């Protein structure tokens, strides 16, 4: 099967950021993204599903440049004050030219 090597950017953040992060990704070149609900724990304490405490988990398959731009933007705008983690790894994508 012919696949294209691309990057998968994964972000977990407090849910109030959900729409904003999707918007940033779109504006920085992501052609799509997938969002799911999560809870979690980190340096900013437990984020259970109680009153306003949920997380969103956002994944986007993007080219390496877009991946870099997205991480850069998140680190600059959201890492100082918000509960958030972001990481990236290599994936091989079917019909990958669609996503760059």
């Amino acid at each position, binding site marked *: 099967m012919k696949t294209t090597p691309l990057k998968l950017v994964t972000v977990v953040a407090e849910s109030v950021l959900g729409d904003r992060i999707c918007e940033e990704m779109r504006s920085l070149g992501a052609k799509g993204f997938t969002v799911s609900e999560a809870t979690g724990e980190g340096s900013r*304490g437990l984020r259970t599903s*109680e*009153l306003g405490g*949920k997380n969103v988990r956002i994944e986007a398959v993007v080219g390496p440049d877009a991946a870099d731009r997205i991480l850069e933007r998140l680190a600059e705008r959201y890492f100082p*004050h*918000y509960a958030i983690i972001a990481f990236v790894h290599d994936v091989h994508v079917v019909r990958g030219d669609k996503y760059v």
Partner: protein
Amino acid sequence: MGPLELLAANLLSPIVLSFALGVAAAWVRSDLKIPDDLYSALSIYLLLAIGMKGGVEISRFAPSQIVWPAIATVALGLGTAILDFGFLRRALRVSAVDAAALAAHYGSVSAVTFIACSQYLEAVTTPAEGFLPALVALLEVPAILIALVLGRSASNGSGEPMGAVIREVLAGRSIVLLVGGLVIGALAGKERFSPVAPLFVDLYRGALVIFLLEMGLTAGRRARELRRIGVGLLVFAVAAPLVHGLLGVGAGRLVGLSVGGCTTLGVLAASASYIAAPAAVRLGLPAANPGVPLTLAIAVTFPFNLALGIPLFHRLALWMAEGPR
């Protein structure tokens, strides 16, 4: 009923007991969990129900009867938020953003506390003005806005642009449901409302029992974080409702509300927001610690008002109306 009986009547009501059950369940670390969607469903239901019931009643009042209470309500929201901000900055030396965050929560309002107050007044057969739900909607916003302005000007305003935050608050679900419910109720009127009353009126109190179970679970879980919060702030979380409540009852008296109305305005002022304010503050003042105001509002101020504040402000309203007996 004397004051002690009124207190007992309140403490032994199913909704207060249900809150206590939630706290106890959290305390023994039960796996009991109110599903997220049930919690959302109940808050939508409760907000829509108070809105619609208020809307049906509101047509019975002339605008002139409502305008002064409305002005008093906005003034209360602004006044208590500014008061809190000043007190927290000066007396407790809280940072500007954190003081503003607390002021936004405590100046705004908790709709569930309002509902619990209505239940209490019904149980003690004290009527209250039918337009009070409209005041809940009015009290929700001003304190949040003034607090954000105070906090941002003191901290050189990081966070989302103020316009976006205001939009977010006004289009927030509690405002939409409350105001939307008011409009639906007012347009539909009593007769067209009656077929939906079995859901929105008769089940109201039962639904509150389940909602308060979840509030209790949340309060119980958050109570563990209280020991990390300084004693000054804990005192604030009890003093603020007392002072706000006093101002609220007084303001009610000033604009000529009934005893039930004064009680309600006192309880509204005493209550602290845990839905609209946290969301707005997170976006408008991201540097503020989001945990502290929420924990204080849910684990201290809400139960304080639920158990003691409501009968207390009722007592106060009676006393203002009739003089000491």
